């Protein structure tokens, strides 16, 4: 802990709170590299040969499985943490490229339902804004047990962001500092979770898939328990996963890196061929997507990266009224989502700041970004000789560091050595 961080605690008398994800250096997908084709493998031609990206989730139990055109979804982020225009923009972008977006703590807004062709509805411990009508309007249900930024902790929304509409949706007094429950109110443990999942299926007439999202901690056991409880899809969020507001100590000191989580989760699902795996937490590039798929994910989810594509940390409001400077930060370094003073209108409930975000133009940027990283993913898959991104496999990868080799369980580059094997 730096001297500045000590002084901050001395000033506040409590833990610091911020947005974003873990900023400490941990092993990432960047520590892996692909062994693309040459003499012993045959590559596909990038511009003439097809590489499939279509992803189907939940076909085993749901009458209407989720069909995605790309293996990249937009992660759960609440209306409250994000502005209504931001939620609308994410929905528009996801719809444009044929993928799903996800609600968050606080319920579903009509804007995001209308703008999202495929919308995943979260069932969180707080149950803020959770109701059976919206449940039936959803295309999938995600029971959230935790998230990578704060596994074991509940959500937060500071008073500045608990405006009239958000407060009404959450049945909370306006302007209070909200701390969400960390445990579900009506079940505890995997045996109960099975019954809860069945209830959600009953209430939706077994129409839509049920996801279970966990923060990456005891991944192998948690994923097996979620699958045993009946999940169609298990979502594993690594420690680099972001948040709109959480204690800094949670963000930096809990969970395991996404790189380590994906392999454990894939191993855990070896006996569950009908259960799909989505991995999230720090996914930024097509290389990250391709590596996660190669290690066993069926799809990935992005949060922070989608917000950056939308305009988060853009330099346009570096100076002037309601700028990054007012938050004591600069464009490129801002994690002040919790303050509600987001200069680009994304993580705010201020009508004036929200007006800075055009949801249509913002959606174009996010859609472009999703297309670009999908292209990067297929480019790497083709170079590995795969006609479907889901055909990528661990054998296509080696590690550049001993740590990454141990976590991803692929050989250290230039060797056949996997630490621990």
């Amino acid at each position, binding site marked *: 802990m730096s001297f500045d961080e000590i002084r901050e605690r001395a000033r*506040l008398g*409590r833990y610091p709170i911020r947005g974003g994800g873990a900023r400490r250096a941990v092993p990432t997908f960047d520590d892996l590299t692909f062994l693309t084709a040459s003499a012993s493998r045959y590559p596909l031609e990038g511009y003439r040969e097809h590489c499939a990206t279509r992803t189907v989730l939940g076909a085993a139990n749901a009458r209407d499985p989720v069909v995605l055109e790309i293996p990249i979804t937009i992660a759960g982020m609440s209306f409250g943490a994000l502005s209504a225009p931001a939620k609308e923009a994410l929905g528009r972008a996801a719809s444009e490229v044929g993928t799903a977006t996800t609600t968050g703590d606080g319920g579903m807004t009509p804007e995001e339902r209308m703008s999202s062709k495929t919308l995943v509805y979260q069932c969180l411990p707080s*149950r803020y804004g*959770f*109701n059976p009508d919206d449940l*039936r309007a959803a295309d999938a249900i995600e029971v959230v047990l935790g998230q990578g930024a704060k596994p074991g902790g509940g959500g937060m929304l500071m008073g500045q962001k608990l405006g009239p509409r958000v407060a009404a949706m959450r049945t909370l*007094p306006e302007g209070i500092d909200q701390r969400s*429950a960390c445990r579900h109110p009506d079940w505890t443990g995997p045996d109960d979770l099975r019954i809860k999942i*069945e209830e959600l299926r009953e*209430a939706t007439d077994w129409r839509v898939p049920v996801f279970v999202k966990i923060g990456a901690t005891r991944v192998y056991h948690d994923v097996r328990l979620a699958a045993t409880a009946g999940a169609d899809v298990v979502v594993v969020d690594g420690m680099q996963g972001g948040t709109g507001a959480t204690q800094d100590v949670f963000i930096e000191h809990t969970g395991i890196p996404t790189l380590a989580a994906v392999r454990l989760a894939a191993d855990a699902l070896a006996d569950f061929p009908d259960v799909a795996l989505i991995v999230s937490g720090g996914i930024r590039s097509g290389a990250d997507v391709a590596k996660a798929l190669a290690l066993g994910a069926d799809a990935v989810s992005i949060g922070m990266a989608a917000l950056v594509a939308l305009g988060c940390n853009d330099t346009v409001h570096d100076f002037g009224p309601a700028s990054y400077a007012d938050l004591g930060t600069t464009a490129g370094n801002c994690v002040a989502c919790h303050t509600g003073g987001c200069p680009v209108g994304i993580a705010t409930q201020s009508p004036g700041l929200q007006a800075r975000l055009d949801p249509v133009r913002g959606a174009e940027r996010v859609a472009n970004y999703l297309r670009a990283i999908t292209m990067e993913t297929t480019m790497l898959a083709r170079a590995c000789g795969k006609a479907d991104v889901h055909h990528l496999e661990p054998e296509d990868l080696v590690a550049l560091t001993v740590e990454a080799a141990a976590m991803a369980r692929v050989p250290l580059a230039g060797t056949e050595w996997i630490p621990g094997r």
Partner: protein
Amino acid sequence: MDIDLSTTTVRTANATLRALPPGATARLTNPAGRHNLAVGLTEEITVEIDGTAGYYVGGLSKNATVLVHGTTGWGAGENLMSGLIRVDGDASQSLAASAHGGTIVVRGDASLRAGISLKGATVLVAGNVGDHCGFMAQAGTILVGGDAGRGLGDSLYEAVIYVAGRIKDLGADARVEELAESDVELVARLAKQHGFDHIDPENVTRVASARQLYHWGTP
């Protein structure tokens, strides 16, 4: 209409209930503690359950009346939006969890965390409630005809709890408040409406939020 759960799956029974028109009545026999009975109902129908229901009876429903002639498992009436759930016997944990509207009545006792995360519904328990009744309850009313366990109203928001018997202790940020005339009127009306004749409306304890946890983070 009678649906015998010894020969009908829960899935089929629920699908049958959901297809009933407003005003219809159905009776579920031989429930034998099966979970998820009468969940996700949307129409003004009446469902009677002859015996013990498992978890989440009547959960995620609106408009319907569900009468359980027996005891229930966890989360009876969870996330109820409107309508009535009535349990003749005892209710297990997390009764009426996160219920937004409607009324949940238990004629016996309710276990731990009755009314947890309540969001506007009315919860009445004729007998005792276990620990942490009203935990993080956000809106609505809880009336307890007997005693309350430990941590009553812990982290309470704007829901109000009335207890006719003894309270073991209060949870964080819950406090006892003076009864107003409107409280007495409300308790009297609820008690009369649901036959809780043993409750003296002028001798209940009102527990509400002390609101000391509302601004823990704002500088």
